[in-house]
């Protein structure tokens, strides 16, 4: 009973349906129209220091956006693979695809944190620190905005080490120090330990956030490439828990698959 994509099955089985959120406490501070609905085109909220406040619960503006499944079509000109990467992706996609990190409930990394389709994410902006909270595995990512430099020898990690600086009203985040072997989508587009990722966060108005993502990974790609994710504010709701390993039933089938490969 090998399925093509364990990862997809896990997602279908466990994703939290947005339509069925149990949480309906009104989000404080959201501007409303006369009929009480959130006014998503109101002006961008700002911190005490007049910088835009990116805080809020966000969901993908276009739920059909498919960067999670395949990021290449969103990249102008497609992904500029180095020789060998196409073969690597072919191998990653071969049945039963048990090496996809999501299949084993491992972390998703900074790009899929943005592109994950079935969940909301929350940004918490604090002087000196920006946090991104995901429902998937109830996991956080830290972005330091206190002026510190990149570490010279970061510990390789799924999220790397991120520092952010304001460029006018745009928060520019640079990340290095990635753990090798990551996937950027379920097609298996790679991210290696040589990667640098730059993100540009722009809150266009109260209800809309745009993140430009540039991936510079000379081990996997011949040149840097960029994609964009657009978010819309999800008012009057909050994060729910999504613990991927909860009620996990796939492992024994995967071990059988691993055994079969070993033979």
């Amino acid at each position: 009973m090998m399925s093509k994509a364990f990862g997809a099955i896990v997602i279908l089985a466990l994703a939290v349906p947005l339509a069925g959120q149990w949480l309906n406490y009104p989000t404080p501070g959201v501007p409303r129209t006369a009929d009480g609905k959130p006014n998503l085109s109101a002006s961008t909220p700002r911190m005490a220091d007049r910088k835009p406040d990116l805080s809020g619960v966000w969901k993908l503006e276009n739920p059909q956006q498919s960067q999670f499944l395949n990021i290449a079509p969103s990249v102008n000109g497609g992904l500029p693979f180095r020789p060998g990467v196409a073969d690597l992706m072919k191998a990653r996609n071969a049945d039963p695809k048990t090496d996809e990190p999501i299949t084993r409930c491992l972390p998703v990394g900074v790009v899929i944190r943005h592109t994950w389709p079935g969940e909301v994410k929350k940004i918490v902006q604090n002087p000196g620190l920006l946090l991104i909270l995901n429902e998937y595995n109830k996991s956080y990512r830290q972005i330091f905005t206190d002026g510190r430099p990149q570490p010279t020898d970061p510990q390789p990690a799924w999220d790397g080490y991120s520092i952010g600086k304001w460029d006018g009203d745009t928060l520019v985040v640079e990340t290095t120090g990635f753990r090798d072997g990551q996937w950027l989508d379920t097609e298996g587009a790679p991210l290696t330990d040589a990667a640098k990722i730059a993100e540009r966060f722009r809150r266009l108005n109260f209800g809309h956030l745009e993140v430009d993502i540039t991936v510079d990974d000379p081990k996997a790609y011949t040149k840097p490439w960029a994609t964009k994710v657009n978010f819309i504010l999800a008012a009057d709701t909050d994060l729910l828990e999504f613990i991927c390993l909860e009620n996990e039933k796939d492992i024994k089938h995967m071990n059988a698959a691993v055994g079969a490969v070993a033979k």
Partner: protein
Amino acid sequence: MKTVATLIAAMLAVPLSAQWLNYPTRGVPRTADGKPNLSAPAPRTADGKPDLSGVWDGDHKPPCPPNGCDDTRSVREFLDIGATLKDGLPYRPGIAELTKARRQPPKTDEPITRCLPIGIVERYTHATLRKIVQIPGLLLILNEYNKMYRQIFTDGRPLPVDPLPGWDGYSVGKWEGDTLVVQTTGFRDGIWLDAFGDPMTDAAKITERFRRVDYGHLEIELTVDDPKAYTKPWTVKLYQILAVDTDLLDYICAENEKDIQHMVK
């Protein structure tokens, strides 16, 4: 194969003594020799309330053995949450048998063994670090273990009447003077409070009273009211000490996981 969980902890825990992160923590008062002054007054937020923010480690750990401490040394409440209670935990009938069954080798039902979340109590007693981020209306507790966050709403909202059962439940906090009082309900059933297997059920209410005693010390008075498991509410104090000039590292329990194949029958 007595305790798989302990084995996992020993293999994967991030060594505190070998933190790669040494960026100086901002705003920490220092003595003349540059060392953090942990007995300076507690910091306060703009509204005058104590600021609980900081990276915290378990305090009052048992003394190191003569050949030195290992990196995964945890407070004794990690093994037994009732360690300081003279008469132990007030089990209801049947709970002693339950904890005994939970401790039977190979102990594969312990959530940590399967890299599931740890509940809000073990988040304070686990050997890895935790970070509190306090902002207006929200307190976050970030743990190295599985890189997980917990939210505590401090914006005045009430507890929900029908919360979605979760590992962390649903938490609201209010200030009483300089003490943050946090109430939590809505727990998923079957949580372990410690490696001993002391239970917490879906009937539990937890009250935490946070007091930052001085710059370097945080006291959490924890009251567990769980009528399905205990005959009466009980209270313990958990102590935290500030970890300066460091930060959280990733601790992904399922990373390089090798135990599952032995556990699956």
